[in-house]
């Protein structure tokens, strides 16, 4: 059966959807990704949909599901590269992709994942030394 490859890069998983998504493929991606997150202890998932020329309610639901499942598994999801015509259509369709973080391109998406990871690490450090300080405040120096 057809599969969408999932690449591991450091603490992140990368997925580029380059085929016409039929429903079963969308479901198997959802399963594969959740399994990979738990196996690799990934902290972030980046999904590039720049090759998708439509996102209908089924694919939208898959993206929303992946985002919530990965959140439960302590990983952040960001969807990147949505074509403008797809975005316009999604909104008219009534799909707002609530809970799905988006970025314009892969670079911006990686930035979102890295900074969310830094935030989490910073918050976990009670004394808040490195990450928090760098981000929030020269005032305290």
């Amino acid at each position, binding site marked *: 059966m057809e599969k969408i490859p999932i690449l591991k890069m450091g603490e992140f998983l990368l997925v580029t959807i380059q085929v016409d998504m039929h429903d079963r493929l969308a479901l198997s991606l959802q399963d594969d990704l959740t399994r990979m997150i738990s196996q690799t202890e990934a902290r972030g998932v980046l999904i590039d949909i720049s090759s998708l*020329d439509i996102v*209908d309610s089924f694919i939208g639901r898959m993206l929303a599901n992946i985002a919530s499942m990965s959140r439960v598994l302590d990983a952040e999801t960001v969807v990147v590269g949505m074509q403008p015509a797809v975005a316009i259509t999604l909104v008219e369709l*009534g799909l707002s992709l609530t809970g799905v973080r988006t970025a314009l391109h892969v670079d911006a998406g990686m930035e979102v994942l890295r900074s969310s990871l830094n935030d989490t690490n910073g918050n976990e450090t009670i004394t808040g030394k490195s990450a928090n300080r760098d981000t929030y405040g020269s005032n305290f120096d």
Partner: protein
Amino acid sequence: MAVTSTENLPLVSEPDVVAIRRRVREISAQLGFTLVDQTKVVTAASELARNTVIYGGGGIVQLESLNGPRVGLRLIFEDKGPGIPDVELALRNGFTTGSGMGLGLGGAKRLVNDFEIVSRTGEGTKVTITRWK
């Protein structure tokens, strides 16, 4: 209304849904639809094609290129499935009896210019949509 070309495609399984998306994309591009309008009509077709396969138990879709006085694309989805007991309810956002988001029917309606649905319990459902250039 001049119909310049008509074709019928089967709508039985999931790969058929993908094939119809492709064909609708091709025809709407040939008719000179803008990219946004192409995307809207392809997305509407995807929703309705899935409904025909999943809820209607399969059927056919008829694709009509309309030419003059206005240019447009009309798609007719027809199945002989169980029918929709309450069409008003089915058109409402968030209504679903299946695994979708309940946006299919209402969402498809919002993406096209004309939308018509005829459904009889026990006989089947026919949805006709038209998107004008």
